[in-house]
């Protein structure tokens, strides 16, 4: 991954900007636990927590490696860190079946644990207007090439 940051450094003009946008799993890659996507049921403007999505070890290792690569690029002086912004990215699903389909087609390294599934099914059965909300914390690093 440091190689990728070397490549972007090469194609950037002097003082150009690198914007690194991705899930904010690890504020510090050496510290556990990761920040996982939160699951809620939403209805009538209120949110009911239903747990967290689980990510595979491979997925978490990849995010940890990305954070370490940025740290390494900063240490080597390839870039200077200008700013960091974190913000929530929201996904909405009409049903557990639709969420399951999205997990199998797009979030292949993600799983919905049985307890969270049960909570969601209860929330949705109590209110047909309820929806599923997944809140994933994102991070935007702004890095400047010297």
């Amino acid at each position, binding site marked *: 991954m440091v190689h990728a940051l070397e490549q972007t450094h090469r*194609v950037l003009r002097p003082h150009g*900007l690198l*914007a690194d946008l991705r899930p904010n799993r690890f504020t510090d890659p050496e510290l556990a636990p990761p920040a996982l996507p939160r699951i809620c049921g939403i209805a009538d403007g209120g949110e009911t927590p239903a747990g967290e999505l689980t990510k595979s070890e491979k997925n978490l290792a990849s995010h940890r490696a990305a954070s370490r690569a940025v740290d390494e690029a900063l240490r080597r002086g390839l870039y200077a860190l200008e700013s960091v912004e974190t913000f929530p990215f929201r996904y909405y699903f009409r049903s557990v079946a639709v969420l399951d389909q999205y997990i199998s087609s797009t979030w292949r390294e993600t799983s919905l644990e049985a307890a969270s599934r049960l909570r969601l099914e209860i929330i949705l059965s109590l209110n047909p207007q309820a929806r599923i909300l997944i809140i994933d914390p994102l991070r935007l690093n702004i890095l400047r090439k010297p």
Partner: protein
Amino acid sequence: MDPERTEVRVLLRRVPFAGARVLEIGCGTGRLTRRIAGVSRSVTAIDHEEASIETAKRRQPASLRRKVRFEVRSGTALAYPAGTFDVVLLAWSL
């Protein structure tokens, strides 16, 4: 997905896309490309998945065709001259 458009609002606030030559790495089906291309001078949008690039090309509005170029390419094989871009966006791809 992100109906509040928080992601795009943060990007447009934090990154000086206006008038910039932009390289977007990991463009997928062009979800972000279409949003940033309007203000940029040009966008080269790459992804290693051919199917995603084909979808991105299909979904691209005619008004952006002269500004945006989609390519099947890995982020670790950037065959562009040094100093080509003002901004590089790693879109969920590092």
